[in-house]
């Protein structure tokens, strides 16, 4: 089967959940004989809409990647302008996309069995998936956010050939909050290797870090709620003065420009260092509200580290409740109490980490995930190949 995989950013220098997710699944499908081409833009960061990566053909992990320049032409601010129907469609049309990428889709879609777009929120998905909806599948990566409720988003999701989701909480959101019951929907997720990290190697490489680490990994952006974690951590230290404790930040982004006592910024690290850092951590904190799977949560659980997640993110709460692999917080008071508990009860914290590890091994092992992915791809190929009209699922 030939698949064109279309997303706004792609490559080893790109930091992002959906992008890392795509790369892992693409590599696993290529091993199983699928022919995949990645069509993307020259973006490296979503914070800075600049054509940073070179235009043209590239090879990433042996997969052909075609990059096209991004058009940036925002005219509507979703957060301040009134959400009239006209503004909603104008905002969707103006979201960052690439005219040249759309032209390429028009010219070359016939050479592929399916067009797979991700995530739902990208301008490349909004513009691209409408060109050939009968052969377009969207890997949604849905979050409970304003954009998801807009009419253009609902039209888009209801009109394509198939939807791929990451977890049960995402499907619940799709069906109950957005009212979309698409007949060709599958929960797939992402497969994880259960590779253990080396805590001792990490301690050896970074000997000046405190004994107990609360770790955050991901983009340093307001959208990931990192500022809340930093503020909570500072309040916590104001009240506890725990010199053995530090907040470790892995990743990069605009919030990294300030320094705070007790906050250690390691920046963008390779996979092995990230694994080792996770293994050396006491707790992984995930404060984000906008997660459709949370790769870093799974990576921490692979290392047997308990998690402290934001209760207001349905996906994270669902993972924690189903796995019993950590605690959650809705405000500072919860954060303080939960962190106190995890640090004061190391045996329970260890058990929670083990529960999380078992959850990942059970729900997100590679053969199971790829099996689910292959099912939805073949079903979508049948729908596309039979020339059936796109299923209408919106209520």
């Amino acid at each position, binding site marked *: 089967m030939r698949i064109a995989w279309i997303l706004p950013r792609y490559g080893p220098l790109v930091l992002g959940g959906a992008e890392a997710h795509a790369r892992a699944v693409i590599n696993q499908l290529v091993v199983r004989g699928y022919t995949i081409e990645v069509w993307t833009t020259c973006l490296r960061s979503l914070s800075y809409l600049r054509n940073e990566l070179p235009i043209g053909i590239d090879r990433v992990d042996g997969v052909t990647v075609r990059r096209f320049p991004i058009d940036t032409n925002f005219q509507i601010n979703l957060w301040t302008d009134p959400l009239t129907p006209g503004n909603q469609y104008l905002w969707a049309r103006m979201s960052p996309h690439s005219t040249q990428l759309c032209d390429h889709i028009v010219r070359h879609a016939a050479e592929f069995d399916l067009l797979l777009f991700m995530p739902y929120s990208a301008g490349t998905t909004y513009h691209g998936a409408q060109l050939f909806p009968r052969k377009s599948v969207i890997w949604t990566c849905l979050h409970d956010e304003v954009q998801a409720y807009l009419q253009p988003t609902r039209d888009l999701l209801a009109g394509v050939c198939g939807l791929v989701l990451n977890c049960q909480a995402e499907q619940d959101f799709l069906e109950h909050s957005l009212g979309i019951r698409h007949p060709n929907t599958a929960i797939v997720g992402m497969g994880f290797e259960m590779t253990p990290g080396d805590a001792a190697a990490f301690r050896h490489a970074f000997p000046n870090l405190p004994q107990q680490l609360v770790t955050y990994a991901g983009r340093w952006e307001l959208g990931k709620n990192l500022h809340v974690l930093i503020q909570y951590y500072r309040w916590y230290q104001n009240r506890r003065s725990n010199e053995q404790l530090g907040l470790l930040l892995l990743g990069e982004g605009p919030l990294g420009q300030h320094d705070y006592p007790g906050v250690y910024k390691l920046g963008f690290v390779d996979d092995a260092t990230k694994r080792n850092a996770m293994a050396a951590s006491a707790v992984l904190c995930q404060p984000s509200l906008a997660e459709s799977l949370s790769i870093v949560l799974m990576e921490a659980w692979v290392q047997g580290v308990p998690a402290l997640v934001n209760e207001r993110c349905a996906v994270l709460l669902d993972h924690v409740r189903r796995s*019993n692999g950590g605690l959650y917080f809705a405000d500072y008071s919860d954060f303080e109490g939960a962190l106190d508990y995890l640090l004061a009860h190391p045996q329970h914290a260890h058990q929670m980490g083990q529960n999380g590890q078992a959850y990942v091994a059970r729900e997100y092992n590679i053969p199971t995930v790829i099996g689910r992915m292959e099912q939805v791809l073949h079903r979508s190929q049948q729908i596309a190949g039979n020339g059936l009209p796109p299923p209408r699922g919106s209520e």
Partner: protein
Amino acid sequence: MSDGELLDNEPNADSIMADVRRGSAYVGQVDTHSNQRRTQTPGWDQNDIALLQFHARSLNQPSVQLEIELDLTSTALDRLPVIGALWRRLRRMLHEVSLHYVRKVTLFLVPMHRHLANATILLLGYQMRQDEQIAALEQRIVELESRLNGATR
């Protein structure tokens, strides 16, 4: 152990969080003072709050406008006869173009800042009222406890 089945002594996220929210998870692990007034905003002193109020109110003033003026530095080329004047004029024009876009972006950001400022002022007001209510309730607890102690004696 089947999926979702818990051992008797295994930690359970929901029950631990219920304990944490009742405050019982702390007992014996932190000083009593830390357990008091847990709903009051921690770590913020009056100076922080006053500064935040000042910034929020400044942002929210309708008269606040960002005035950005051109400030060209002098270069060696400026001092050349005829060419220097032309060069300076050209530089001014190019800088005016940049300023035009800076002003456009500023106009775009001002309503957003006002929106945030409004929200901040509202939240600060809520917080102040909440702190007053907490103080009143704590005072009431002290009074009731002293009455209770008097009654039991």
